[in-house]
């Protein structure tokens, strides 16, 4: 370490001018239909690669960087998600699916290694270390839950030698994301949830949301102009809050009916009377405040973002221009309007609480919500303990044909029959599957990896089906709650064309995970078997043994020998008693 220090220092002088370290954060609020609100938190920190090599950490968390270095990981993506993104009513995903994970925990990383074995052993190091850092069961990502996708993911970062980078992808659909994962997530931030937009993040509200996803993305970024590189860490939290539900105070969380006099009634209903009332749907945007929704105040800006100039606007709200917004703060702030006044951004005051107050308002205009390119749903069909089938329905509402990659990584105990794979589009006679990559499962060693490149014509629906067989597990392989069923991870769909994203992030969507019921044994069976077998063996042994060693005598000769055992003793006692009584 010390020997090459001077060399590094020389580099530091050369590089410190160009490779910058900075920190940036932004919260985007966007009202969604059905009185819900999307809150997208994004935290981005850069650390120059020389500082990383010298292990001088300012914005980048030390523990995380050391894990990456130890596991030779060059790029990493980690997702914790709960709930389902309701694309039908909420529209396009906030980051086009690039920062939203499937339900549970998802992790993929590019690891530098000479060969696949080395890459896999480093992958195990990585998942075990991350498991400790994030208090999640990431260490359960083993060979059976790891696949090496071919077409679905591309590195986001700038890698100098990508020839010995290995992509590994792991999934834990069963993992329950909870407060204990949020706390370490916040600790990685420079302002730690004590200032800046991260001060709004509260476990109670975050995990009460209709949909929430936390993401950690690390990638190397190189400036093409001067060649200076830095390691970028992006943390994001996206949550869809139900406004009415979130506004309930924590000490009185049960919704109660208002007195009838305070409710506006729909008088057009025929049953409307003095004592019956149908609440009037006012078709207005509900009133809300930041403090109310998130249950805690926004404690000003994180001072580290101050240096950023225009980038320092860390709170944005995307509403129609007519929407009334009041700002409630004691400090200095500034407001900027962009994108035809539909985006209002605020530069937050340092050291003073900041609150947005939106009153109830009847809207005449609305915002156009981007529609996703594809809708996807997947389900398990069939019944019985032995076989089943999977059906994925992928709908293309747009006017262009969409090319996409469909990645399925199934657990080994769910064995698909590839010959039953059918992809069918109503309006098309030819097979929409253009390319197939399939790696069959090996029992207890690896899962199935299926990747399909498909084209779906405009305004049509593709139905993908395949049958599978359920394996019977060994007694010890069942988890504690085996009758709940087993989770199969969500399918990942990556859209290749016609939409090309500019920043290498890609456009993704994910289906919901599958719940697969497997035949479960009676778990008290081994003990029953032990007892039953022992009894049968003991019975057989006793009979044979007695036949061999007992002396057989005539019925009328038994008493002459004197009955043995308890019966004999009792008989003798009884006889003596009788004799005594008879004498008396």
């Amino acid at each position: 370490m010390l020997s090459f220090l001077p060399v590094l220092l020389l580099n530091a002088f050369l590089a410190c001018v160009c490779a910058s370290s900075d920190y940036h954060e932004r919260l985007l609020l966007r009202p969604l239909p059905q009185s819900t609100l999307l809150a997208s938190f994004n935290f981005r920190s850069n650390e120059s690669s020389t500082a990383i090599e010298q292990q001088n950490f300012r914005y980048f968390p030390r523990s995380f960087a050391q894990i990456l270095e130890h596991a030779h990981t060059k790029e990493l993506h980690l997702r914790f998600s709960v709930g389902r993104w309701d694309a039908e009513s909420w529209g396009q995903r906030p980051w086009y699916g690039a920062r939203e994970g499937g339900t549970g925990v998802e992790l993929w990383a590019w690891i530098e290694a000479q060969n696949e074995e080395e890459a896999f052993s480093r992958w195990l190091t990585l998942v075990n270390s991350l498991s400790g850092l994030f208090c999640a069961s990431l260490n359960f990502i083993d060979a059976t839950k790891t696949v090496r996708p071919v077409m679905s993911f591309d590195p986001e970062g700038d890698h100098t030698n990508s020839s010995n980078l290995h992509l590994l992808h792991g999934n834990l659909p069963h993992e329950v994301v909870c407060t204990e994962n949020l706390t370490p997530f916040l600790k990685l931030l420079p302002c730690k949830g004590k200032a800046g937009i991260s001060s709004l993040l509260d476990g109670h509200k975050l995990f009460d949301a209709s949909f929430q996803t936390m993401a950690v993305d690390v990638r190397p970024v190189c400036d093409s102009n001067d060649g200076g590189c830095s390691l970028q860490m992006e943390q994001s939290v996206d949550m869809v809050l139900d406004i009415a539900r979130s506004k309930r105070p924590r000490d009185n969380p049960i919704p109660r009916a208002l007195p009838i006099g305070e409710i506006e009634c729909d008088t057009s209903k025929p049953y409307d009377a003095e004592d019956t009332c149908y609440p009037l749907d006012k078709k207005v945007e509900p009133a809300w405040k930041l403090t109310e929704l998130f249950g805690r105040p926004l404690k000003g800006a994180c001072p580290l973002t101050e240096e950023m100039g225009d980038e320092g606007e860390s709170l944005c709200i995307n509403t129609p221009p007519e929407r009334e917004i009041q700002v409630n703060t004691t400090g200095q702030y500034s407001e900027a309007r962009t994108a035809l006044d539909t985006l209002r951004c605020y530069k937050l005051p340092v050291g003073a609480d900041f609150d947005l107050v939106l009153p109830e308002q009847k809207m005449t205009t609305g915002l156009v919500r981007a529609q996703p390119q594809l809708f996807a749903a997947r389900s398990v069909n069939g019944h019985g303990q032995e076989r089943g089938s999977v059906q994925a329905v992928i709908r293309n509402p747009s006017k262009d044909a969409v090319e996409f990659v469909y990645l399925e990584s199934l657990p080994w105990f769910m064995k698909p029959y590839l010959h039953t794979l059918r992809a069918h589009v109503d309006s098309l006679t030819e097979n929409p599957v253009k390319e197939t990559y399939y790696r069959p499962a090996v029992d207890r060693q690896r899962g199935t990896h299926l990747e399909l490149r498909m084209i779906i014509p405009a305004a049509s629906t593709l139905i993908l089906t395949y049958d599978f067989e359920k394996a019977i597990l060994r007694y010890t392989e069942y988890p504690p709650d085996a009758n709940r069923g087993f989770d199969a991870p969500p399918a990942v769909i990556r859209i290749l064309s016609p939409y090309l994203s500019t920043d290498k992030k890609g456009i993704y969507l994910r289906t919901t995970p599958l719940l697969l019921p497997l035949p479960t044994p009676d778990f008290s069976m081994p003990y029953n078997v032990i007892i039953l077998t022992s009894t049968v063996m003991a019975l057989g042994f006793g009979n044979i043994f007695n036949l061999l060693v007992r002396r057989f005598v005539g019925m009328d000769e038994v008493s002459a020998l004197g009955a043995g055992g308890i019966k004999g003793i009792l008989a003798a006692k009884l006889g003596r008693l009788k004799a005594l009584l008879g004498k008396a």
Partner: protein
Amino acid sequence: MAPPEGADAPAAPKADPKPSDPPSESIVASRTNKQPPAETLESLWVRRWVILSFWAVVACLGLPMWWKTTAIYRADLPLQDMTDWADGKICRPVFPLRIAVEASPQVQDAHRLIRTTQHALDDLNEFSAHHLRLILADLPLPANASQQAIIDGTSSTGDDQDIALSVRLIPVETGETPRSHLQPYAPTLDVYYSPNQIPSASSTASPLATFVAHELHKIFADEQARLSYLLSASSSGHATKWKALSAETAAELQRQSTRVLKYAPTYHLTFSLFTPTSVPSAWDIEPALRQYLTPLLESFATISNFTIDTQVQLYATFSPSIRQPEYDEDLKAWTLRKEDLSGFINAAEWPLSPSIGEGPTVNFALYVPEQSQSPLLVKENGASSWLVPQWGGVAILNPTSSAAIPKALAKEALVPAMQTFSNQLISLLGLPQTPASLPLRLSTLTRVRAASLIFSASSTLGALAQVYQKMPSIPVPDSVAKSVDLTLGHLQQACDHFRDGRFQGALEHARIAEAQAEKAFFERSMVGQVYFPDEHKVAVYLPLLGPVAVPLVMAALKEIKSGIATLRRR
């Protein structure tokens, strides 16, 4: 199972003579009933053989098989050797230090001088294990030796590893003689003398010899104290043999040894800047470390390697368990109570997790208090830094002026903190404060560390032997036996190196021995079985063993009873 009626027909001759009596009373009835035929000797023996063979099968085949299949594997360990090492019976560490004496060619009687000095030295020495042996340096020195040797400290000796200290005798005409000078960056003691102080052929004592002996004794006094403390602390068997240490010295050494980090080949140093607010959010740590710490770490390179990482942590609050600082009017400062210092590090919130990789992490935390709470001092003594034994150090950086805390700390502002951290690191690594020469202190540290590693490896072996003997239910895999063998081998080699005075080699072997001993002792597979005692084994098989054992035991008892009865009747 009752035999058919016809079966007892041939037994009629043995029947009671009065079978027609009515069974009015049971006692009478038994007498009056028909007697079964006498059992033939053959059938009696057949039955006995049957029972015996069943028992034989159970005892010779069943039980051993059951025992074998449910037994846990325990590798053989050389328990006697392990205990002997722990008791210090095998290796009595000795520290023969070679001291090269370089005398200019003018000194004709160098050999005699050395002999007399050696005598004087032996008289002074009270600690028999630590022995200073003077040898004459082979190379004759050029006249201007003093200048040259300063440039290149190792020029005078062939294999400098084995030479603890070089004494150079330099004749001078002026100044007070004899006088001595210990070079701070080389293991060299310069002794200046006037030519008339050379002992003559006839005299047995000379002022120069006595002077050199006293100087040497003084230089190594601290090391002797340390080693004798180590020997007395490590095993009771040695205690009586060594010279008694004074109570204060022992207490001081005790205090020092509790601070010192456990030895490791690699240490991770983590420097963290903590602040309760958002400033300062940057520090000029890289040049500061390069200037103030790197030279120190380089000098430790022969003993351990170091990795360094730094971090900045904002919004670091005190842990709720300690009292908030109070303002002290006399000191004009905010004060922390001494008893709260142990809770100053907020372990729950401050990210001071150990670094990944082998070796312990040493933490150095620099805390910059809030503007409104500075200066922040320790109430009892007004100090602003303290050492956390075996963990690291904390320094509070109070701003020098009343101006607002800068956003970035400059290198100059970090100087006092860096000096504090260097001193703390020296204490944590156990480097002695004396003598003045750094190479000597480092070689002292090498010897102390090597000896303490040997003792700790030996005592680990002893503990393992005890565990092996006292807990017969734990499994012992072969890897443990292998590690123990390796440990014993390396301990022996370390001990041999000690005897030959090759301390660097001794440290290497002691290091491996310690690592292997720890590996053997903390073998994971040895723990699991402790929670699965023998009772469980019996409980699982009881449904089978119980019903099978009852007829076997009853038949055997009955047969023995009848056998005894038959014998008595005879």
